[in-house]
C-alpha cells in the first residue's frame, strides 16, 4: 500500500473511531477538528486542529518561551470544551527561565485562573509520567506539558505514550519544549513559534499578543507557514495579521513558500488606550 493509501485508511479509521465515540459523553471532542484562525492556518492543517491528540510547540529561541507559553495556553483554550479545567505541568527549570505563571496574566489571555491546575515538578521523567497520568483523565479540557531542553526521558516512546493517552481520553495534549533541539516526532503536529510584532495601538502602545508560527511537521499533510496570528481573547480565537517582511528574519527559508495572510476584513485594529 502506498503512502497515500495509508493516509486514506488512517483517516477512515479515525472517522470510524470518531463515530464510535460520538455517543460517549466523556469525550465530546475526540476526533473533531477545532478552528484556530478560520483562515490560512486552518486550511493548512485540514480545516482545524485535531482534538484528542498530541501537538508539539518549539519556541524559536529560549527568549520566546513566554510567547510560546501564551500560545500554548491560547491553543488549549481553542481545544478545550468550555469550562473544563486545564492542567499545566511545568519544570522547575522553566520557572527559573521565564518566571512563575501569573494568574492576572492568565485571566488577561482569557483563562479563569480557577480553571487551571498547576503541577510543578523537578525532573523530566516525573513530568512525562504525570503528563500521561493527567492526559488519561477524560474530565479535563486540555493539558500543557512543559519540558525544558532535550531531556533523555523524552523519546519517541514517551511521546507515543502521551499521544495514546490523549487519543484514549479525547483530551488534547500540548507539549511545550523551550530550549529544545527537536528530535522525537510522535506528535500530530509540530510548530515553531516566535513572538511576533504586535499591531500597535494609539500612542505606539504594544497591541494584542501576536505570534509568528511555522508548521514544521504535520502527520497528514505538508508543512507550512510562516503565519502571523493575533490572539483575540474575547472571541477566544486567533486572527491572521499582516506580515511585515523584516519580521521573517528568523525564518528565512520559509519565506517564499506561502503568501502572507490576508488582513482580517472590516475588523477595527485600533482602539483607545485605556
Amino acid at each position, binding site marked *: 500500500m502506498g503512502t497515500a493509501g495509508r493516509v486514506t485508511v488512517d483517516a477512515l479509521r479515525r472517522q470510524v473511531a470518531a463515530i464510535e465515540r460520538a455517543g460517549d*459523553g466523556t469525550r465530546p471532542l475526540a476526533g473533531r477538528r477545532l478552528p484556530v484562525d478560520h483562515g490560512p492556518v486552518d486550511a493548512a492543517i485540514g480545516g482545524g486542529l485535531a482534538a484528542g491528540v498530541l501537538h508539539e510547540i518549539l519556541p524559536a529561541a529560549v*527568549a*520566546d518561551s*513566554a510567547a510560546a*507559553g*501564551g*500560545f500554548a*495556553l*491560547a491553543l488549549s483554550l481553542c481545544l478545550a470544551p468550555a469550562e473544563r*479545567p486545564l492542567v499545566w505541568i511545568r519544570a522547575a527549570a522553566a520557572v527559573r527561565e*521565564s*518566571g*512563575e*505563571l*501569573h*494568574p*492576572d*496574566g*492568565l*485571566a*488577561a*489571555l482569557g483563562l*479563569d*485562573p*480557577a*480553571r*487551571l*491546575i*498547576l*503541577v*510543578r*515538578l523537578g525532573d523530566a521523567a516525573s513530568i512525562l*509520567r*504525570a503528563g500521561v*497520568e*493527567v492526559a488519561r*483523565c*477524560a*474530565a*479535563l479540557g486540555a493539558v500543557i506539558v512543559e519540558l525544558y531542553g532535550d531531556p533523555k526521558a523524552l523519546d519517541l516512546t514517551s511521546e507515543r505514550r502521551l499521544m495514546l493517552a490523549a487519543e484514549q481520553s479525547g483530551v488534547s495534549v500540548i507539549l511545550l519544549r523551550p530550549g529544545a533541539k527537536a528530535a522525537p516526532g510522535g506528535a500530530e503536529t509540530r510548530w515553531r513559534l516566535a*513572538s*511576533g*510584532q*504586535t499591531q500597535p*495601538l494609539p*500612542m*505606539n*502602545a*504594544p*497591541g*494584542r*499578543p*501576536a505570534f509568528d508560527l511555522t508548521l514544521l511537521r504535520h502527520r497528514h499533510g505538508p508543512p507550512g507557514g510562516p503565519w502571523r496570528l493575533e*490572539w483575540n*481573547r*474575547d472571541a477566544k480565537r486567533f486572527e491572521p495579521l499582516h506580515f511585515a517582511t523584516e*519580521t521573517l528574519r528568523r525564518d528565512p527559508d520559509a519565506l517564499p513558500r506561502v503568501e502572507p495572510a490576508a488582513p482580517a476584513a472590516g475588523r477595527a485594529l485600533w*482602539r483607545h*488606550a*485605556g
Partner: protein
Amino acid sequence: MPAEAPLLITEKVKGALVIAARDPAAIRLGLAPGLTLAEARARIADPAVAEADPAADAALLERIADWCDRYTPLVALDGPGGLMLDLTGVAHLFGGEAAMLEDCLKRLNTFGISARIAIAGSADAARALARARPGSIVPPGGEALAVRDLPVTLLGLDAARSLALTRAGLKTIGDLIDRPRAPLAARFGAECVDRIAGLTGLVHHPISPRRLVPVALAERIFFEPVSRTEDIEATLAGLALDVARLLEKRGEGGRRFEAVFYRVDGFVRRIVVTTSRPNRDAKALIRLFREKLDALSDPLEAGFGFDLVRLGTFATEPFDEIETSLDGRARDEDALTDLVDRLGARFGPEHVLRFVPEDTHIPERRARAVPVLAAPAVRWQADLVAGEPPLRPLSLFNPPEPIEALAEVPDGPPLRFRWRRVLHRVARAEGPERIAPEWWRMSDDTLDRDYYRVEDQEGRRFWLYREGLYGQETTNPRWYLHGLFA
C-alpha cells in the same frame, strides 16, 4: 580482673566533664552519675569514655515509642528515657498484662535495649514502680499498697523538697499516706499531696499521647513475617476493605489514611495518603497507596519482613452516598478529584497547585499557589475590557530581575535595556502605570513603582518598572524587569 573497661557517658557541666550515664560494669564499680570524669579516672584505670548525645537519645526514644504503637495507640513520652503506655482495654489482645509485659521486654531485648516496665492503675504509680520494682504488676485498686514502701524521692518532687521530707523523718510513701493531707500541703506544697493522690490511684493524671488515635483501624499480625511486595499489597488491600467497612458503619469517609509497617527488628515505617474528599473506596485507596509506594525514593525496605501491618484513618467526615448522575458532571468531578489525589500521592500534594487570589494590588502578592487538596477553587475577579491587550504579564519573576535601562527623560519610558546580558531596543511602550506600596506594610525603603508595557524590536513583550519617583523619592531610579507577556 574486669573483663572489659567500664563505659562512661559524660556531659559537660560548668566546664567539667561529669558522668551522665554508665554501663553495668561501671555500676558494679560504684561509679555514679554526677561524679566528675577526673575523679572516676582516679578510681579506675582506663574507663571507656563517650560523650553524651541527647539528640540521638531522644531520637532513639522516639523510635522505641513508634514501635510501642503496636501495643496501644496511646503512647506518650515520659521524661528523659521514659515512655508511658495507656493499656486500657488492650491487654487481653496480648494474652493478659503479664504476657504483654513479658512480650514487650523480650522484644526490646532482642533489639539490644534493656527496659524496666511496671503496670499499674495510675500513670504515677506505674512510673514510680518501673523505677523502684521493675516487673511489678499492680492488681486493680492495689496501688496504695504497692507504693507504700517506695522512697519519697519517687514522688517526683524537686530535690530540696525531697530532702526536706526525709529530714522530717518521712522516708517512704507509706509514711505520707498515713498522714492528714492538710498539714502536708501546708508544709510541702499542694503538689506533694497531688502526687500522693496520683500514686495511690485516687487521681488520674492524663498522659499526652504522641499521635492521634485513628478513627478506624485494621491490622494484620503475622507469625511468619511478610516481605514480598505482592504479599504486602494484598495485606493492604485486605486492610483497606476492613477500614472501608468500619467507615461505612459510621457513615463517614476518611481524608487521611496511614499505613504503618512494623519490621521485625523494631523499625517502623509510616506511609500517609490524603484525599481531597472523604473516601471509603477500598480500590481507590489501594491505588493511592500503590502510587505512593512506587514513588518512594527509598523503597519500603522489608529486610527480614514485617510482622505487623496496620491501616488507620484520621480526619473523617460525613460521607454522602454518591448519586449516580445522568449528566456526567458529577462523574467528571469524581474523575478530577481522583486525578488530583493520585498526583498528590505520587509526587506530594505540594506539587499539585491552584491559584488562590489575595486581596492586594501588589503584583507579586496577588495570588498564592496552594495545594489543590487544601483549597477549593475560588472564582477570579478580573475586570477585563473587551478588545484590550493583556495588561498583566503571563509570567512573573519573583524577585524582579534588575536591569540596566536607558530612558530619554528620567521619568519617561525606557529606550533600551539590558536583561540577562542581552540588549533590547524598545519599539513600543505604554505607561507608566503607577503601583504604590501598601502604606500599612510600608517600610522606609519601599518606593512607588512605575510600570511600562514594552515591546522590543524583535516583537518580544516585557513588563518593566522604575522604582522610585524621579525627583521626589530618588534621583537615580533603578529599573527592574518584572514579567514577560505572551
